[in-house]
């Protein structure tokens, strides 16, 4: 019993005798760390260092113990100490700053992005502020390398190819006519898409995913918000246009609606900018109405319907060798998309959409009087499934129906448009279906590397052709801030129905491109400094080519495009941001009427865009855009041959695209002022497009016998624009 007593006392004395542990915690270069935490693991005995890095605490623990030292973004340190009761311990610890963990590589194609995500290339605000883009999303995208804006309209052309080689996707629907004033010349077209309704914008000028089918060159993938972001309205009063939009979100956030209505009022704008109002009849007029309804039946699912309607009319005086008069055209577009998306458990997500579009387009000029209609309907399903921790599977299918009708009067000889020229009536209707399916795997064996093999299949019912496109893209973050990306793949696009209509028993192959892309990206501080360079080679075959003798289209064309894109963006301070994009392109094709390898329609050798924006104060922003690019190729007419039958001169063409317009220059500036009006948030915009009044050519016309070349100068002379927006 006595023994036990002693033991007990001993125990007591052990517990009662605390040991003092003290020391200093320092970081690199022996700088003291203030606020570092020291603890004996498994207890709360410990201390926090003071501003000299010093700590001390007492513990009743004895024996071998682990001391754990931690401090924010420093590597933690564990040290075993042996505590003898009552015997002071002094322990100095040096911590090392943790190597910033190599962040995960983002699985993306070589694309330019915008949206709410922190990894985007440019933000929606930057997009609408780009001087010269007039707040137009597509025009803004033409400041990215890979696309060019020599025609000044909203159509995007990529790496030499025509605008129809770029597919625009909204949610899951294909958008074929998101434009107003899109006739004949692409100098004044605007897109009807509201950039503020978009949650993500993804522009890829090549090497894109197997998700996207029936497109040869590039994809502009737009995603709208599933639900509106709040309730409110916006009124826009501009010198050329007025618009009203509203968004509504229910209190429980399960129901939302948006509405957009707008109209152009161009006469005051034309008068201010010195346009000859009598060159227009009618003065261009466009009206648009759009909206959406969203409903969330459950936490993880949403149904959304989008509707858009636009109508425009334009008459421009146009002189051609055979006819002088107004070029009149009008168009009307209806678009709708219904989408349902939902999560199935935590690993599977699916989305399906049903879209419809109907576009009508009429043209009257001289003897020419036509009406073209295009209808599209599409059903699409996409499924994403997390197969394993490092493997995601994307798969899906789509069926698209396309119908084109074309009717009216066309001249027998394209060069003779006079009112009494020989002409014939046409009436034609073609339709086809396309069934597509794809599957791809996103494999990320390590955090810094990804690999996406994919394959898609497309079947065209009219030509009874099926194609299989294998694609592969890889990304490797080989150092902090540095990524290498590569992509190879086969891409197909079935020719437009108008070419099938003029072919031998619909026997046209889909146009084919093989993409080879290699890019390097340096991204410092998530976009504060971004440098990208990308080289590409694209090889085309089975391009649509007109046979010289039969005038029927065949699949005999081929070509290539190669070049380098460079993009540099820096927003070092909150006040100043700038980007420069440069593209070198060499694109030759035998296509349409070019039987030999000729420069492609948009073979712009050098294309440089500089954009800068400066926040003068919190409420005043100013910006500048400067573009310079090689002139666009065109096919010169070398003279005329008199044709006694038609009593007209027949043009003699030089080699296709053997001429070039002069170098293109344009500088645009804008100012924005944010203020409070009637207690509401208001913004005023003043902009001058083509500040230096550069005379940019976009076409030539000729006198009656083709001996004199007459310049058609862009309508975009120096222009002033003023607008006022009011949020309510």
């Amino acid at each position: 019993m006595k023994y036990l007593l002693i033991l007990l006392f001993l125990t007591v004395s052990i517990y009662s005798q605390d040991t003092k542990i003290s020391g200093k915690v320092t970081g690199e270069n022996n700088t003291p760390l203030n606020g570092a935490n020291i603890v004996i693991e498994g207890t709360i005995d410990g201390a926090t260092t003071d501003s000299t890095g010093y700590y001390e605490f007492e513990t009743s623990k004895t024996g071998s113990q682990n001391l754990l030292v931690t401090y924010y973004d420093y590597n933690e340190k564990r040290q075993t100490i042996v505590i003898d009761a009552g015997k002071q311990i002094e322990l100095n610890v040096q911590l090392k700053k943790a190597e910033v963990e190599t962040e995960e590589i983002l699985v993306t194609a070589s694309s330019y992005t915008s949206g709410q995500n922190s990894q985007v290339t440019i933000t929606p605000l930057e997009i609408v502020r780009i001087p010269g883009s007039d707040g137009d999303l597509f025009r803004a995208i033409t400041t990215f390398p890979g696309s060019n804006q020599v025609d000044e309209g909203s159509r995007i052309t990529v790496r030499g190819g025509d605008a129809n080689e770029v597919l625009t996707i909204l949610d899951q629907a294909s958008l074929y006519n998101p434009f107003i004033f899109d006739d004949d010349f692409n100098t004044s077209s605007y897109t009807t898409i509201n950039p503020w309704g978009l949650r993500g914008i993804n522009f890829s000028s090549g090497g894109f995913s197997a998700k996207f089918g029936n497109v040869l060159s590039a994809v502009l993938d737009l995603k709208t918000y599933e639900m509106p972001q709040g309730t409110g309205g916006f009124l826009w009063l501009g010198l050329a246009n007025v618009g009203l939009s509203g968004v509504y979100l229910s209190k429980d956030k399960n129901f939302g609606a948006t509405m957009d209505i707008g109209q152009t009022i161009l006469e005051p704008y034309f008068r201010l900018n010195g346009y000859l109002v009598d060159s227009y009849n009618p003065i261009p007029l466009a009206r648009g109405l759009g909206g959406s309804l969203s409903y969330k039946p459950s936490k993880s699912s949403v149904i959304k319907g989008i509707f858009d309607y636009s109508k425009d009319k334009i008459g421009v005086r146009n002189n051609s060798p055979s006819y002088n008069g107004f070029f009149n055209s009008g168009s009307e577009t209806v678009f709708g998309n219904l989408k349902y998306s939902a999560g199935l458990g935590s690993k599977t997500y699916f989305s399906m959409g049903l879209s419809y579009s109907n576009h009508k387009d009429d043209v009257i000029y001289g003897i020419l009087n036509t009406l073209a209609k295009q209808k599209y309907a599409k059903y699409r399903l996409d499924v994403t499934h997390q197969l394993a921790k490092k493997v995601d599977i994307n798969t899906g299918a789509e069926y698209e129906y396309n119908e084109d009708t074309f009717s009216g009067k066309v001249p027998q000889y394209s060069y003779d448009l006079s009112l009494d020229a020989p002409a014939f009536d046409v009436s034609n209707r073609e339709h086809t279906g396309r069934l597509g399916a794809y599957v791809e795997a996103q494999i990320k064996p390590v955090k810094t590397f990804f690999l996406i093999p994919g394959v898609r299949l497309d079947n065209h019912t009219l030509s009874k052709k099926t194609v299989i496109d294998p694609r592969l893209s890889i990304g490797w973050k080989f150092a902090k801030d540095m990524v290498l990306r590569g992509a190879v793949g086969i891409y197909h696009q079935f020719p437009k129905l108008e070419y099938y209509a003029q072919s031998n028993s619909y026997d046209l192959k889909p146009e084919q491109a093989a993409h080879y892309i290699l890019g390097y990206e340096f991204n410092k501080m998530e976009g504060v400094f971004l440098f990208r360079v990308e080289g590409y080679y694209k090889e085309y075959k089975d391009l649509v080519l007109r046979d010289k003798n039969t005038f029927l289209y065949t699949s005999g064309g081929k070509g290539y495009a190669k070049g380098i894109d460079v993009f540099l963006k820096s927003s070092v301070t909150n006040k100043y941001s700038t980007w420069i994009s440069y593209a070198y392109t060499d694109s030759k094709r035998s296509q349409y009427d070019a039987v030999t390898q000729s420069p492609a329609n948009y073979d712009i050798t050098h294309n440089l865009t500089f954009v800068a924006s400066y926040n003068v104060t919190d409420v005043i922003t100013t910006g500048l855009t400067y573009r310079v690019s090689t002139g666009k190729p065109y096919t010169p007419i070398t003279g005329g041959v008199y044709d006694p039958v038609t009593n007209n001169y027949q043009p003699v063409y030089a080699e296709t695209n053997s001429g070039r317009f002069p170098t293109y220059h344009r500088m645009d500036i804008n100012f924005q002022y944010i203020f409070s009006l009637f207690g509401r948030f208001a913004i005023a915009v003043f902009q001058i497009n083509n500040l230096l009044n550069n005379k940019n050519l976009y076409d030539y016309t000729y006198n009656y016998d083709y001996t004199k070349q007459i310049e058609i100068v862009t309508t975009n002379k120096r222009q002033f624009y003023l607008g006022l927006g009011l949020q309510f």
Partner: protein
Amino acid sequence: MKTMILAILIAVLTTLNTTFLKADDYTDAMLKALKKMGDAADKNEKAAVLKVRGDFERILQLKKNEWMVNYYLGMLDYMLSRYAADEKNNDDVKKYTESAISLLDKCTDVNDQFADAYVLKMAVQGNRWQYEPNKMNDIIAKSTEAKDIAFKLEPENPRYYLIDGYMTFYTPENFGGGVEKAQPLFENSWKYFKTYKPKDETYPNWGNDQAAGMIAMCYIKLEKPDEAKKWIDMALEVKPESNFIKGFVMPEYEKMKK
């Protein structure tokens, strides 16, 4: 003899027990740390905040993934980030803010029904503006998301209105902020504080004096000294030693009177 042994045994057991308590009684440790945290906040001393942060970190080390501890650590880091902002030390603002964000995420990963964590997330996002202004969209999106969740979970949480009020108060009128819009939010906060009962002693219970103090601040901005004084007194009634009132609101009040 027997009694003596018993007494000793009890003594030993008690000692043992306290040691155990020290290591295991989470509530006790939390309460002590919370008390210290309150004192540190009242003294408005960065060093004291850092010290108490260590206490929480040691508790966390013992009770891994305890969401409530992560909440307080996040809150302390938020406080530290505000000190760093006053010192114009952007590196530290970033360090503390990133840490606060990650701690609050850890908190809601475990307990996604805890409204106060989302309330704090709302506030913390605003700090990022100082070191990554180019991420404005992301900041707004994340802050709005946290705000929406907080409201959904606890529409009568007084700190929700307090933080919303702060954010509105410091946003220029042109951008939808301003005193007039902020004041009703603080008044709501004050109203809900009256009925607010923390679920237990470790639950957050701060901000009542700030709600009254900020109503006073609104009146100070509107140059209404009598109302301001009334609210200062009400704040001091709630928390007589409030450093927020004595160190921040009252000097502003004196300035206005001059």
